[in-house]
Structure formats: C-alpha cells, structure tokens
C-alpha cells in the first residue's frame, strides 16, 4: 500500500544558541596541543636547571636502551631489523633532547656553566649512539664494543641529574 505516506513539510530554523561553546572548545583544544608540545624559554637558574636535568634523563634513557639493544643483538637474542629500529628510535630521542636543550638561551652565567658541564657529555652520547645505529644497520657484529662508551657516559649523566635534580 503506497499511501500518501511521504510528503515534505516546511522546515523551521533551529534555535540559535550563542556560539560561545564552539569557540571555547576550540580554544581549549589549541591550549591542550600547545601545552603538550612546547618547551618554553627558561628565565631563572632553577628553570634552566630543571631543563638540563630533563635532558640528561632523556639521554640516559636512550643510552641505556642502546646498551641493552646492543647486548641483545650480539647475543643473537633479537633480529637485526628490530635492533636497528630500537637504536634508531633511541637516537631520535637523544638528538631531540639535545636539540631542545641547545636551543634554550641560558639566562645567566651560572647557567652557562651548567650548559658547559652537560653538553659535551650529551653530544658524545649522541655520537656513540649514531655509530651504533650505523653498525646495527650493517649488522656489523660486535655492537656492544661500539656501544661500550655509553655505560660511562650514562653514569656521568646520571650523576649530573642526581646532583642538580
């Protein structure tokens, strides 16, 4: 039975609420994304110090990951591509931390000293990790040998972190 079941009805306009809720949520989302992403400038010694400590922690984490990965690679406990990706990921972490730190302006002379104490170790660690990455991609045997300096470097960074953290 195809009754006159279908016909169009004149429509009305939806009640307008103030568009405030829309703008508010837009702002909130922007705020969220921004706050989750950036490193702001450091204006005091203690702010700079905490950034330095965070950097040290990041690089310690990356270094020890690489040490473990190298060990597993040499012992044949993992696959070459897996080790390769693990080291590459750690390298990205270390380099991102280093770059974020070097881009921050030290606010005073004391911070300059802090920078001078930290940066060379961080840079060394990044370099070694890079070498491990190259060796891993080549599946070049003795990764632990290449990664060995990281043990010492990680301990130094750990000490730095404990001292200033």
């Amino acid at each position, binding site marked *: *039975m*195809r*009754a*006159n*079941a*279908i*016909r*169009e*009805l*004149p*429509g*009305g306009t*939806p*009640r*307008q*609420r103030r*568009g405030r*809720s*829309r703008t508010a949520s837009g702002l909130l989302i922007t705020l969220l994304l921004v706050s989750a992403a950036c490193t702001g400038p450091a204006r005091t010694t203690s702010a700079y110090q905490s950034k330095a400590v965070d950097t040290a922690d990041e690089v310690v984490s990356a270094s020890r990951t690489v040490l473990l990965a190298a060990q597993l690679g040499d012992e044949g406990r993992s696959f070459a591509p897996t080790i390769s990706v693990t080291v590459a990921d750690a390298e990205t972490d270390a380099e991102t931390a280093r770059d974020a730190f070097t881009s921050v302006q030290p606010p005073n002379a004391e911070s300059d000293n802090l920078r001078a104490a930290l940066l060379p170790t961080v840079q060394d660690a990044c370099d070694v990790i890079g070498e491990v990455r190259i060796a891993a991609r080549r599946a070049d045997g003795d990764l632990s040998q290449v990664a060995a300096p990281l043990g010492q470097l990680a301990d130094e960074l750990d000490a730095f972190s404990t001292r200033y953290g």
Partner: protein
Amino acid sequence: MRLADLIDSRIVDADGRDIGRVGDVWLIQNGPPIGVFGAALTVDALVIGRFGLASRAGYEREGVRGPAPIAWYLRRRTAHRQVVRWSDVLAIEEGRIRLRLREGDLGRPSIEDVRTTGRRVSAGLELLDRQLVDPDGMMAGKVDDLAIELKDGGAPPVVTEILAGPGALARRIGGTPGAWLASVDARLRGGSRDPAAISFGVVARIDDHVTLTVSREEVATFGFEEWVRDHVIEKIPGS
C-alpha cells in the same frame, strides 16, 4: 507545528507569570481515524518541567529502584511537576504558550491518573527517539520529531506525521550543532531543507519501537541509504 516547537517552550499563566517550560506532552488515542493505526493521537496535556535525564530515566514508574543515590536524586527532580490540560491553553505564540489559568490552579496528576478511553502515550518518553522498524524487521530511522496539526474550535491538536531524518533531528538538537547537522543534511539531499515525513497512518504498532506497515524503501529517509548503496557499496565486489 512540530512537537519540538512545544517542548521547551516557556509557559505563561493567566497573570502573565512565567511558570516554566514544557517538559513533556501527553497524547491520547482518541482522534479521527488515520490509516492502519486507528484513532489518531491527540495532544491531551503538557507537563511542566525540563525534559532532561530525570524524566527520561523512568524513575516515576513503579519498580525502578536503580542505584539508590541516583534514583533518589532523579526522583526528586520529577516529583512535583505540574500538568496543563490542553483545554487550559489560551494561545500559542512564538516560543511561548499562554494559559487561561493561574499557576495555583494547576493540578499534578500522573499519566496513570488521567481518565480516558483510549491509550495514553507520553510523547517524550515513549515515542520520541524510538526506532522505526519496517515489516521485514529492517531499521528505518528514528522518531526524530512529530508533526502536529492544530484544529479550530478548541478541538485538541492531532498528531499527523512522524518526522525523521537529520533535517528533523537538527531542530531538536538546536544551537550550532543542530544548524550544522541541518546544513549537512540539506547538502546531501540536494538543497531541500524540509524533513522527511511519514504519515501516522502507516504506523502499525507502538511498543518499545515503532513498527511501520510500509517497507523502509518507501520511506523518505531511505534516499541517502539508497544513494550510498548504489554509488558506493554496490561498486565493491562481495556486497
């Protein structure tokens, strides 16, 4: 007129005082015959109060205990709602309903108290947002709104059609999300801004869903489904 026009309208009593909003509309099946459904539903009363979670939770009904704290809180919110019979309505204006009575003269019957021959339906609780199902058991949309025809001479308004589809829904959602939904729907249906209507005559039954007597393919809301089926899904092997 649409049900969405009634619900949430402000109510003004004989003294001009604002006494609340329409929270729900009670219907009675005692109107002129309309197709397979039998006697049409007519508007019997308006319930004053917000139609929020409190009313929809169903705690006024017996036997719904719910988690005790929630039940207690929501029951309190619906306990003292007043009811306006349609015969007490003087006029319907833009967004406002004017009454003949004063606030003090209003009663508080529950829907079970209303003496009537013919079935009672609470539009907000039992009809709106219900699933439409066709005779084959296929889903055909939801009751997004109702079309109500006003009668002259004090006769109660008759519910003539079910309005379905995003065009109708947009009005009930309201505000910016509603406007956005309406424009998306209009674009998908080629510029028409009128919602799809289903005559109440093809309604077979109302229980926990609304059963129709026509196949869903004959309902206006099928247009979009048909388009997607023909232009997207059919093109993929194995459909």
